[in-house]
């Protein structure tokens, strides 16, 4: 489907595609752990840049940035709201006043921390999803003794995403051919009812098909795909564990490693950030509403 978010394997033969899925899963877990242990924005945005670099190495940077675009509305709303009402304990330090709106210095820093966590974890997870074949992931998790049913559900979810994306494309084409406007909320019902019905039917058929092929049978299950790791893969995993342990330890010892005290934020900067983020967020909502009610 053209224009769909590419949240699935992007076929390739890069170094990253060839890395064993287990080290890649370890990276994702460590990213989440470190991101939620530290409040150091240099570390957080450094992690995001590293994930982006991995995307470049994996040859998936274009679809990665396309999929990561979803951060824009989330990030802009997050920054705008945090500047007005920080999610940290009071007292807050006022930095600027815009009519009835008060902006707080704590909010700007904490908003950047929250955004950094989302950006870093999302980019890393996307890089791993885009460079790992779902079946390899399935085989790896099976070797780790993850319950077969749970493992199958995860792998199937990843495999069904592109199928449903393609389905949405066909359904939108079918409805446009019937004169439906292709954008906005008015397209939701005609487009998503067939998607959901199709999804339910597909799952029903899949479950019958699985049962008929011995899915629920007891005993040892084998795998067609064989995944073997190289020494370099395990080195990368150990390196990541080492770096994460270091960053985690420093973060704990420094009480979250908050470096807001080292940053000098001018009131004009806070106002600019708030105006830009609020404008972007409200602009996206306005655009969605205009597209919804625009006459074709």
């Amino acid at each position, binding site marked *: 489907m*053209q224009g769909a978010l590419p949240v699935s394997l992007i076929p390739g033969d890069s170094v990253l595609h060839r890395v064993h899925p287990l080290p890649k899963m370890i990276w994702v877990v460590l990213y989440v752990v470190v991101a939620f242990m530290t409040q150091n924005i240099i570390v957080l945005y450094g992690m995001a840049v590293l994930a982006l670099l991995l995307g470049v190495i994996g040859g998936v940077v274009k679809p990665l940035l396309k999929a990561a675009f979803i951060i824009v509305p989330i990030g802009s709303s997050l920054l705008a709201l945090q500047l007005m009402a920080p999610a940290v304990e009071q007292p807050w330090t006022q930095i600027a006043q815009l009519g009835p709106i008060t902006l707080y210095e704590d909010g700007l820093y904490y908003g950047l921390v929250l955004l950094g966590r989302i950006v870093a974890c999302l980019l890393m997870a996307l890089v791993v999803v885009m460079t790992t074949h779902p079946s390899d992931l399935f085989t790896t998790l099976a070797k780790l003794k993850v319950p077969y049913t749970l493992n199958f559900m995860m792998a199937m979810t990843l495999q069904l995403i592109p199928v449903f994306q393609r389905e949405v494309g066909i*359904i939108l084409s079918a409805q446009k051919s*019937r004169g439906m406007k292709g954008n906005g909320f008015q397209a939701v019902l005609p487009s998503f009812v067939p998607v959901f019905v199709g999804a339910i039917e597909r799952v029903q058929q899949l479950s019958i098909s699985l049962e008929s092929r011995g899915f629920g049978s007891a005993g040892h299950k084998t795998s067609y795909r064989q995944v073997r790791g190289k020494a370099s893969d395990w080195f990368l995993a150990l390196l990541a564990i080492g770096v994460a342990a270091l960053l985690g330890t420093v973060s704990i010892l420094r009480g979250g490693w908050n470096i807001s005290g080292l940053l000098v934020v001018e009131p004009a900067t806070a106002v600019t950030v708030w105006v830009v983020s609020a404008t972007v967020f409200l602009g996206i909502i306005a655009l969605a509403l205009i597209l919804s009610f625009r006459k074709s």
Partner: protein
Amino acid sequence: MAKKSPLPTPAEARAASEHAIVVSDARYVYPNGKVVALNGVSVTVDHGELLGIIGQNGSGKTTLTKLLNGLLQPSSGTVVVNGIETTGRTVQEMSAHIGYVFQNPNHQLFARTVQAELEFGPTNIGIEGEELAERVARAVEFFGLKDVIDEHPYRVSFPIRKLVGIASIVTMEPSILILDEPSTGQDHQTTSIINNLMRKLAEQGTTVVCVSHDMPLLADVVERVIVMKDAQIIADASPREVFADKPLMARTNLQAPQITEIALQTVVPLGGPIALTPAELADDLGARLSSKG
């Protein structure tokens, strides 16, 4: 980009255009730039013509039909439908002129009742009041949907659902109708309804384009067949000529209707007709038997 002028009504456009469809040297390359789905295709279809498109999967049949209603825009060349060049036109604009019935009805049905489903398309192109009610009533009558009119489209059987999908486009009364694999998953009764529909629409002046692997259906109904292979049109003739062309059938991995194959091996070498239907073959065999006394 300058805004395109509003389109004429389907009736005006049809009256003003010499041909229903004119595709000139159309080429379509997928956005990844690697797959050429259509390569220099040219074809002209007259108003009221019944056209079949055949070819192996991946030969470019669906891409060609998607160019016709604006779902895809040609990478080069032109596509003119009812005198309207599709480039720069939206699918919604073209939907009043050209109807497209998708292969799987589940891709287009969403409303709570069959009635609402039949009304959806016409209301999108501004049909309302009595005319809307008449169009729906005509479709209900023709497709035999009276008993399921208040049912949810997903609660009726697949063949009936398929008829609802076709009827939901027919109520828009486009002057060109594209049917993508209309007989897939259909029983004999619904297939004959679809056959009758195609004939009736053509009689009324609607141009019908049918993409299908169902050779007996095409042999029975269409007047002209286009054969596609490797993103190009490699034959364009009557079904009799196409299905009798054994090298063409072999080259495209297609199979003529069984009745035609039987005729080619039995009565054709004796000077009999290239039968497309069992009735044609039976008539010839009957005549031969009676002449022998």
